């Protein structure tokens, strides 16, 4: 499968510099021809994405059969000024959705307009703010770790467009929105027009939550000497152990002893997502970046610089035990390949965090 083809549509309509960076990395630069043993590019993006598409088609079908009786729209109080970020929907489309962080007030209006003057009877209208975790082995079963409800209207009838203000104040949203391989964490505003036997009318508005951390007060470099006895001794250094998402990894690899003919050296960023607990723990590792550091065979005493910009990659902060459901960890994997394509590697965990954007 052509990896580029799979992602091609993502870019439509987006001119953002960050995205360009991302695409450039994905399309232009990585050339896997030289290294057939490397991870297959397809595995970087989970096959499950396709399942989502199938699911969405089914939903559309249902909605199409019963034409919606009314049109529901959300307006946020600070909608104009609030930052919008792209969010991938279940059907694979990317929508721009508002971005919040924990303890923010989520304030806005919901307007409901019956279709072409038809009246809508209901047993009450409510809006919920849900924080949900969905495990893919347990699809469709959402675990709500946050659930807040506001009643919007008492039972009655709607004849015309009606607007309801709502407000969730200082909402505790400790976890970030996350789309993983085996797990998804999302936040949604859900409006329900309860109609009893006729079936409730439900409308969702996704939003994204990102939480910012201040720079850590202690941020030691990672420095280590590794090797194979009498064969290869290297010393590598990464300038930090904790990186923010737009950070740059600076470092160097110093060759203390080289008795094998190396061909090249890469630095990989790997994401380890573990879900479940106990016996049901499931671990999925993806290689998000494969960055060539060195071409050719160095000799003793050479020092190879590292400068890896993290911004082109779709990274998230490190998540420790989110609601006892999952964890996401990041690793730097230094891989040396010799002329017989043997690989020597050393993996080091790094902590990722989200730094408040200054803009």
């Amino acid at each position, binding site marked *: 499968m052509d990896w580029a083809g799979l992602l091609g549509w993502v870019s439509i309509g987006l001119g953002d510099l960050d995205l360009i960076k991302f*695409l*450039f*990395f994905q399309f232009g*630069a990585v*050339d896997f021809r030289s290294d057939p043993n490397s991870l297959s590019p397809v595995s970087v993006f989970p096959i499950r994405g396709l399942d989502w598409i199938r699911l969405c088609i089914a939903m559309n079908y249902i909605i199409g059969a019963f034409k919606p009786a009314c049109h529901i729209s959300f307006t946020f109080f600070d909608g104009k000024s609030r930052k919008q970020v792209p969010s991938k929907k279940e059907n694979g489309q990317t929508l721009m959705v508002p971005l919040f962080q924990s303890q923010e007030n989520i304030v806005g209006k919901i307007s409901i307009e019956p279709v072409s003057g038809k009246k809508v009877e209901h047993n009450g209208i409510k809006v919920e703010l849900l924080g949900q975790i969905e495990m893919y082995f347990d699809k469709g079963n959402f675990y709500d770790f946050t659930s807040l409800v506001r009643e919007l209207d008492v039972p009655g009838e709607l004849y015309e467009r009606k607007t309801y203000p709502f407000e969730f104040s200082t909402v505790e949203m400790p976890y970030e929105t996350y789309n993983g391989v085996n797990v998804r964490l999302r936040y949604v505003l859900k409006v329900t027009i309860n109609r009893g036997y006729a079936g409730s009318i439900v409308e969702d508005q996704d939003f994204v939550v990102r939480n910012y951390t201040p720079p850590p007060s202690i941020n030691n470099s990672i420095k280590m000497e590794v090797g194979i006895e009498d064969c290869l001794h290297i010393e590598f250094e990464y300038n930090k152990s904790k990186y923010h998402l737009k950070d740059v990894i600076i470092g160097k690899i110093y060759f203390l002893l080289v008795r094998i003919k190396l061909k090249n050296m890469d630095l990989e960023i790997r994401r380890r997502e573990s879900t479940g607990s106990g016996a049901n723990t499931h671990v999925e590792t993806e290689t998000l*970046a494969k960055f060539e550091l*060195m*071409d050719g065979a160095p000799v003793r005493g050479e020092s190879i610089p590292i400068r890896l910009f993290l911004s082109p990659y779709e990274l998230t902060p490190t998540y420790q035990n989110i609601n006892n459901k999952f964890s996401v960890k990041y690793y730097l994997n230094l891989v040396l390949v010799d002329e017989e394509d043997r690989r020597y590697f050393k993996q080091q965990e790094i902590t990722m965090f989200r730094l408040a954007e200054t803009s």
Partner: protein
Amino acid sequence: MMISNGIEDEEKWLAEGIAGIQHNAFYLHRALDSNNLREALKYSALLLSELRTSRLSPHKYYELYMRAFDELRRLEMFFKDENRHGCSVVDLYELVQHAGNILPRLYLLCTVGSVYIKSKEAPAKDVLKDLVEMCRGVQHPIRGLFLRSYLAQISRDELPDIASEYEGEGDTFMDAVEFVLQNFAEMNKLWVRMQHQGPLREREKLDKERNELRDLVGKNLHVLSQIEGVDLEIYRDTVLPRVLEQVVNCKDELAQYYLMDCIIQVFPDEYHLQTLETLLGACPQLQSAVDIKTVLSRLMERLSNYAASSPEVLPEFLQVEAFTKLSNAIGKVIEAQVDMPIVGAITLYVSLLTFTLHVHPDRLDYVDQVLGACVKKLSGKAKLEDSRVTKQVVALLSAPLDKYNDIVTALTLSNYPRVMDHLDAATNKVMAMVIIQSIMKNNTCVSTSDKVEVLFELIKGLIKDIEGTSTDELDEEDFKEEQNSVARLMHMLYNDDPEEMLKIINTVWKHIMAGGPKRLPFTVPPLVFSALKLVRRLQVQDGDVAGEEVPATPKKIFQLLNQIIEALSVVPSPELALRLYLQCAEAANDCDLEPVAYEFFTQAFVLYEEEVADSKAQVTAIHLIIGTLQRMNVFGIENRDTLTHKATGYSAKLLKKPDQCRAVYACSHLFWVDDQDGTKDGERVLLCLKRSLRIANAAQQMVNVTRGSSGPVTLFVEILNKYLYFFEKGSPQITGAAIQGLIDLIKTEMQSDSTTSNPASDAFFASTLRYIRFQKQKGGAMGEKYDPIKL
């Protein structure tokens, strides 16, 4: 890694690479035309990925590189124009670093870096430093060299040099120097590493490939030399030590040789002069296989030319003691490189000599020092057999001759002959010839016996047989040529002071007397004449110096001459000795030294009697004796009588009658010297003539008997001429009647049937008669005298 199986495969891979570049270049151009940064980056990275190949030789890789290079030029133009892509150069600088593969990433980074410097948004030095550091990521020799060469290329116009627009605000030319030096060091490392890349059996191929790449490395030195800010001080304190450190430490002969040469060629002469010590200090540290002699030779050649360029720079040479430094360095190099063949060492000395001759023509001691060093190197070795070595030694020895046009100068060099001693016989001779030719060409006069001594020591290969060499293979013509040269040389030995001149002659004699029978006939005559010349000079001065105690008296010289010629006579070469005796006798005569002259004549006669056996030689000899004796006026009557008596006696004893006849009538002159107080003994003249007539008659008869016809009348005509001579001179015994009688006799003879006519003698006779007739007609006293003769 694939090892190339042949040229065809390589061609194929190159074609594939080019196709890949062209393909991506097409999309790149489209992206550039539509100002699409994203696409431009994508396709330029793909395009550059073609350079990741390991399959091409440097030569082919270069072709590929050049194509990529052209495309990068376009891309750079695009990057420069922010309006076209809307991305600040700072962002661009980061953006290109997102590329996953290192080689395309670094090419793009360098390209943007160049734009970055031009934009002046960051100090040039920071960008340059970053680029040169980041390029460390490419450790593959060929790919790394080309990448760094690209970096050098694009940064060339942006170095923060003095007076460049990138200088200032913390950017100084020192940053530029630092940058180039670092890039140079890294490139050199990569280049040197190439030799370890392949299997040993491909060593030769690798060396060839490496050679193809050397200019990429050398280019950096060229750039350094172009940086305005690199003045002498910077060069001396920073550039040179750093470059040399690289050169020495890389321990690679190919690189060391090339880079040393490069340093010498790209930096100005005055820098070399002022940093000689440093530069030369590196030489002994180089690998022993490095052709250091060529390197040093080139350096000295450059310095020589520099010295020749203008006289104003000469004090600099003195100030830095260039010669001493070079000399020491060469010594150390030779010491350090034990394996260096002797020819290498000698070549070095030749270069040094050429250098000092150009730069310090007045310092003969330097020349001698060089030769001395050479001797030291050669000492303990057997005679040089290797033709390359001897060639160099000849060059070494010829250089001072060519320079000074004056052998005398060379003669003061004490080590000169010692070097020559190391040559084999043949070369020694060649060298001796060179020396002699130099003297001849320049008309050099060698004027003291000491110098002559040295000179003959130098050319002793020509003067005598050298022990242990066989003379069989000598070419006769060469030998003659050599000996003739020696003979000519002797005339160049001259001093106005007779005393010194005598010493010179003594010295020469001392040398040539060992020459043996083959040489003496060539060498003795010039010496004799040289001595005689001195005698004549003394004779002229005689009046002035009379009475004083003079060491150089003719007498002494004649004693010496006697010895010399005696040596020749035992050789044996009697005819030559005889002539020389006669010459000496004549000289002695002029000096009024009767006993000496008599002695010489005695020697001549003894030789005639004992050694000259060949009748033809006898004829010649006797005529010479007669001729010489005739001119002698020093003898008293007794001596003269003895000698003339001997001469006439020998004349009459010649074998052939005509020879007898001619010798005898020639003897007539011995009794009639046409001087004021010369002997005028008409009686004995007549006796001689009559006797010759008798002999002529006898000869005629002998011919008659043996052949049946008379011989020509030539002899009679000749005798007639003698009669006429003495008649005219007024000898009373020679009468017109006698002449008349002789004429009649000849006429009768000619008319006789038995006489074979001979046109030559007829004509001779006719013209003799014509002369008589002429004299008669002329009248006057002589006419009257002739009058009675009837024709």
